[in-house]
């Protein structure tokens, strides 16, 4: 195997966190196998990104093309296919982002190369690359090997690979790339940012966060009450938004907000990784859930295994009592 290629992703003048994460992993894998680590970045005004990437990559390939400014699957598929054909890397590594999910499956079919997505671990074993995936919603792990292939495609789970400071000083190589024709059957129309109306959960010191364990929209009342006595704000996991119980601006997690409150109180949240990714930065986490084996308990500092609807009213009373005593 010759090289590992990491394709970096950026939007809104920022390189995605997950790109740094897989870049770090790529660096480690390359070092272990004494391979070259390549990074690719495309778009307009990308020199700053490229420079950034040289801290990890031995070589950074840049493609200046305004059609690649936005992370859109179709143009990038063409670019990456081109790069693979040209460079023939042994491994192509990307973050498992929404962008990648739209892109890599088609790419693997187009090139006839193996793909494993959303890996939580990537490692060498007897000279072969192996990956581990988290399956059954985090309740089991599975490791995979690859059939013989010149190139394999891997995406890595957001938040799984710690960013290690890059020590390299790679060099930048610009490649010319032009599109033969425009993609007219799938037209990008723009972005829609969720409006931050009213409550900004990223600014709250205390978040009382609810999951589907609260069962019913009406039960938000008592949760609001708890948030009130704690001087905090109510946030939630994805199902609560899916059910329409709270607006999406209150959602914590991969497709919602990333938060770092002083206290994160998870009520009836099982703790799927998509959620945990958004709240790992909390200074103190308390989880209340009926299911003793819920993954949230391995993230939390304190846990209560019980029905939230039973504990929360009692908690409101106790806190009010304690507050009453101090005031």
């Amino acid at each position, binding site marked *: 195997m010759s090289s590992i290629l990491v394709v970096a992703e950026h939007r809104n003048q920022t390189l995605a966190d997950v790109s740094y994460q897989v870049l770090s992993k790529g660096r480690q894998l390359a070092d272990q196998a004494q391979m070259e680590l390549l990074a690719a970045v495309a778009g307009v005004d990308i020199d700053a990104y490229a420079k950034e990437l040289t801290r990890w990559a031995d070589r950074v390939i840049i493609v200046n093309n305004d059609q690649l400014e936005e992370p859109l699957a179709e143009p990038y598929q063409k670019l990456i296919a081109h790069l693979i054909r040209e460079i023939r890397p042994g491994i192509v590594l990307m973050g498992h982002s929404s962008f990648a999910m739209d892109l890599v499956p088609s790419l693997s079919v187009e090139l006839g190369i193996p793909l494993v997505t959303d890996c939580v671990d990537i490692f060498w074993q007897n000279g072969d690359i192996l990956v581990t995936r988290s399956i059954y919603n985090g309740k089991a792990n599975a490791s995979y090997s690859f059939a013989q292939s010149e190139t394999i495609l891997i995406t890595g789970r957001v938040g799984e690979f710690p960013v290690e400071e890059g020590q390299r000083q790679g060099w930048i190589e610009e490649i010319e790339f032009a599109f033969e024709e425009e993609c007219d059957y799938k037209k990008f129309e723009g972005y829609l940012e969720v409006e931050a109306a009213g409550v900004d959960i990223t600014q709250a010191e205390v978040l009382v966060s609810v999951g589907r364990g609260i*069962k*019913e929209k*009406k*039960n938000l*009342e*008592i949760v609001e009450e708890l948030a009130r006595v704690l001087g905090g704000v109510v946030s939630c996991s994805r199902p609560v938004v899916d*059910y329409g119980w709270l607006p999406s601006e209150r959602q914590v997690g991969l497709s919602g907000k990333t938060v770092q409150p002083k206290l994160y109180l998870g009520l009836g949240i099982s703790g799927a990784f998509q959620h945990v990714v958004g709240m790992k930065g909390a200074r103190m986490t308390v989880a209340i859930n009926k299911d003793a084996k819920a993954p949230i308990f391995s993230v939390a500092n304190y846990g209560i295994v*019980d029905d939230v*609807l*039973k504990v929360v*009213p*009692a908690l409101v*009373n106790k806190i009010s009592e304690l507050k009453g005593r101090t005031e």
Partner: protein
Amino acid sequence: MTLTNFRYGDVIHRCFRCGYCKFPINWMDVNNCPAYARFRMETYSCGGRLWLTRAWLEGEIEWSDHLADILYSCTACKNCEVKCPLSFNIDILNMMIAAKSEMVERGEIPSAAKEFLENIQRQGNPYGTSREKRDEWMEGTGIEAYQGQEYLYYVGCVGSYDTRGQETARLLGKVLQKAGVSFGVLGNDENCDGNEVRNLGEETLFEMLAEDNVAQFQGLGVQKIVTLSPHSYNAMKNDYPGFNGVFDVLHYTQLLQELIRNGGLDVSGGYNAKVTYHDPCFLGRWNEEYDAPRAILRAIPGVQFVEMARNRNGALCCGGGGGNFYLDLLGGSEDSPARRRVREACETGANVLAVACPNCLTMLEDAVKAEGLENKLTVRDISEIVGEACVIK
């Protein structure tokens, strides 16, 4: 939909909305319809729901989440049927259930009801907890599997899965053991009785549950059944015969009353408390068994029995019927029926509120906490009181 699909098209317009359906044992207030007591808008009264259902059937109003919530807030407590002075009163609940059935068939039901029913489809219980855990309540009790004993002890979903329900299920088991009753349980092979499924309007699922249960019971040669929950009792006594499942079904209070009367159960250990009793709808209004639980309490030395202002067929529902112990459409307010009920229990000066239904137990116990009455009132299932009186730890 038009009236033609609705089985009660020639009846539903007959409600005048005079409001007798809201009365308790007398006319002391208009809050004995649990949903009306909770929301106090006419829409939530029995008459309101009937008029709305009719308006929906006639196309005067559209289906909405709110409409579904209003209909599903009916706890099937039967107060309306018992109080309505008009001759179609026997159909009131059937009309409500039929309206829910329409919603079920269209798939448009409150999300919690959807979850409830899907959980039962999948795991045989409303909580969605694995079937494999149904027997966890009986760990270490030495209760045997059913294999031709005199009684099948049917525990039900709340007794099998709810922490508090499990305690009563265990205690009742121990009481029966102590009385030397020959009985066995189904453990993990027990399935939901379907009573609430029927009340939620999921008729076919109910039929399947009833058919399966009847076949299972018959296959095991079951003749007598004693149930922990009045809900199971109701389904098995009144509905299963329609599926060729005729069994001798007893609610456990009926069996315990008999055991105490004939000396089979010694309760001389006594229970020192001032006790009031909350009639569960499916034992009381649905099956008119008001006496057995009272007789048990009166037979226990030390029990000072007092009645609440609303009792027997005028009892206020705990708000947990019609699946609402899970759907909880009536929770979240001091007007919630369970909270009203525990305040009423407190007014009698009793320090123990006795119940005979695991649903009522959990509903009322939560209400005691919500009301902050823990120091004044304890909720106990009669099985627990009897357990104490016959000195079971």
